[in-house]
């Protein structure tokens, strides 16, 4: 009896070795999730980040790229900073099962308003890039970008409406290239692009700075006109008539791409980062992703693996911190 109990105990202790949650075999060289994956979204359901996240998780499950479930958590406190801080501070094995939807629109306010930095995360990948376009009301007196430039020089009260920090950075790049100041052409920040578009449709503001996805319906219906593509090359489709800045005059084309990516906590293992990076690559190559998300939202498919995304995001943060004077 005593031997039987000792044997049973020994077997139980031996079995516990194989019951380890992380099946990292051969040290840090491979990772395969053994439990559900927590995915933090730092904005409200129904928004752009939510749609982006759900599209990825739906495709990953449907195509059988992953067998475990994604548990999406919305952490919107503090404008999303609490959620980002929570992910950054995730330690131990849980770090390998924690993902964060991470966009340029998240990085910039984080750097501006908190002490949290990219160094507290592990960039996993980039999935898509977005650019912007300038829109005017269909019956605006400024029907071209040249008319806007002439108007500003003549002292007209022209205001640009955009949303959030990423639009503001593009606006700054634009006026720098044109040689204008913010006093000459003020910028109004809005909570969302639809607020900016509303103000132009109502004739209260001359120009809206918006993403192609939000713009297409209004241009197609004839209510608005796109007068400038904030990109190195023209957009396609209904926005194709909008010239780039170098086509308007003796200027360089302006683009400040807005990117959508994915990150994990700093303590995520390299093997886990590689796994998720490859997973996202597979998602980005599916037809569903290309047709139902990228094309539909007028985005540019720009997958960057973890090896490429990390230096890209680091440089992006460095440039941004320099622009806002926090680069010490």
């Amino acid at each position, binding site marked *: 009896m005593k031997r039987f109990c000792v044997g049973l105990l020994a077997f139980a202790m031996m079995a516990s070795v194989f019951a380890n949650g992380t099946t990292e075999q051969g040290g840090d060289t491979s990772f395969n999730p053994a439990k559900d994956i927590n995915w933090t979204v730092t904005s409200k359901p*129904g928004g752009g980040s939510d*749609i982006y996240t*759900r599209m990825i998780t739906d495709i990953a499950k449907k195509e059988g790229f992953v067998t475990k479930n994604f548990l999406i958590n919305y952490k919107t*406190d503090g404008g999303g900073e609490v959620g980002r801080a929570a992910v950054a501070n995730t330690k131990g094995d849980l770090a390998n099962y924690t993902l964060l939807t991470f966009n340029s629109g998240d990085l910039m306010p984080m750097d501006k*308003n908190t002490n949290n930095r990219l160094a507290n995360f592990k960039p996993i990948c980039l999935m898509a890039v977005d650019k912007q376009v300038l829109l005017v009301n269909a019956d605006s007196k400024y029907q071209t970008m040249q008319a806007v430039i002439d108007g500003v020089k003549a002292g007209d009260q022209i205001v640009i409406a955009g949303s959030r920090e990423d639009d503001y950075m593009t606006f700054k790049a634009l006026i720098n290239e044109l040689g204008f100041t913010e006093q000459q052409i003020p910028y109004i*920040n809005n909570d969302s692009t639809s*607020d900016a578009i*509303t103000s132009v*449709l109502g004739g*209260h503001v001359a120009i809206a700075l918006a993403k192609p996805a939000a713009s297409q319906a209004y241009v197609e219906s004839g209510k608005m006109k796109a007068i400038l593509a904030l990109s190195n090359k023209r957009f396609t489709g209904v926005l194709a008539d909008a010239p780039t800045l170098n086509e308007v005059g003796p200027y360089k084309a302006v683009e400040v791409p807005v990117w959508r990516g994915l990150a994990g906590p700093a303590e995520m293992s390299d093997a886990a980062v590689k796994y998720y990076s490859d997973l996202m690559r597979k998602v980005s190559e599916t037809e569903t992703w290309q047709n139902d998300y990228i094309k539909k939202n007028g985005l540019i498919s720009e997958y960057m693996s973890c090896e490429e995304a990390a230096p890209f995001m680091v440089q992006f943060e460095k440039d941004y911190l320099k622009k806002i004077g926090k680069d010490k």
Partner: protein
Amino acid sequence: MLFEGFKVCLSFNNIMACFAGAVLGLFVGAMPGIGSLAGVALLLPLTYKFNPTTAIIMLGALYYSNMYGGSYSAILLNIPGDSPAIMTCLDGYPLASKRKQPGKALMTANTASFIGGTIGIIILTIMGPLLADIGLKFGPAEMTALLLVAMTSIGWLVGKNPTKGVVLTFLGILVACIGMDTLTGSPRFDFGNTYLLGGIPFTPFVIGTVGFAQVMRLMEERHNAVKCEFDRLTIKASMLDGHDMKRILPFAIRSGLLGTFVGVLPGAGATTGAFLGYAAAKGFKTEVPLGTGAIEGVAASEAANNAAAAGAFAPLLALGIPGSGTGAVLLGGLMMWGLNPGPLLFKTNPDFAWGLIASLFLANILTLLIAIGIIPFLLKILAVPVKVLIPCIITVCVVGSYSATYSMYGVIVMGISGVIGYVLEKYGYSTAPMLLAYVLSPLLEEKMRKAFIISHGSVATFFEKPIACFFMIVLFAIVLTPVVRAILTKAGVVKKKK
């Protein structure tokens, strides 16, 4: 096209979806802390796989019927089920508790909700796109002038001690300032705390100040609580007679029209609609004074918030612009279901758009019938012992506050604001001005600053634009009339009011 819409919405699946949305909305609306925004946001992910028309019918019915449900806990417990029901508390609870007519209060709320909602849906049907265009005309200068007029309604809420009312108003403005500056993104009053960067969350603050404070009062008075005995807790006994209908009809119609219009305005929403609907009622005679249990007050608030919910669909469907926070979530849903919300929605997806509008008519009728049917059940809540009721209400408030922020931060805010609300009421400070200021001042600040940016700092913009000028004239009239009247009375030109 509306008949085509009825053909779409009267399929079995869509009727069941409408029914499910209506029931859920009543339930969600009745529970303090969980409003339409939380309800739609929680349910939205479940509908991603639905047919888009079925999904929007269910969510639209939930959003709409939430306005019915919000009045129930406001009337029975003095705890608003959601923020648009705050004004319903002012007359609904005294009518139920002091005048011992809870059935009549609930029936008034349901009837007025139906009338206001019907007005809103009819206007949406006939002139949805035009309504949306009218809403567009309200830019920052126009909204500033309108909101200044709305802020004057605080004067009617300050009660007997104007000084206390003004103190609370400024406290409400101060609380609203906490967080990130809406235009520059700079932190204000965050004290280096990441949670405070996002400001004081709206729902937990309102539920705490009004609802949790009420719970604390119930706890304090639980030994003195007299068991409410109502002789006849039947639907028949709750029905409104001809005289009551005559009293509430003008208020419901007026507030219905006002609420529809407010619902269309960018960023206004059902809460602002309810505030303005109730404030407008103050300008008319009522059989009993407003704030003491007048059915006119209940009707004004409820008709306005239902009408505003219907009106909010106008910019959403006609232009792809959400008229409220819940509208923004619905917009995300539209995109997720593969639709392109925007000016072409009626052209590219007429079945969807008209099916939704038709379903609002259906939701209105279904919700009214269900709401009337559950009145006896609701009235039984009043017979529940306080020692059982309190933990239930606390649980619901905690769940609702948590769901607003997906974290315990909302619960902490609810608790602290509840204590503050309780202490304020104990010392004779009415919290209504604070809540109104808290709701309106962020919107007023944002619009005013934008107006000044657009006009390069010129005040003349508020008088050069016709709509803004009109509301500024109304504002001066409201502010100066009492002053002029006092002067003329003193001079003997005008007889003193008795």
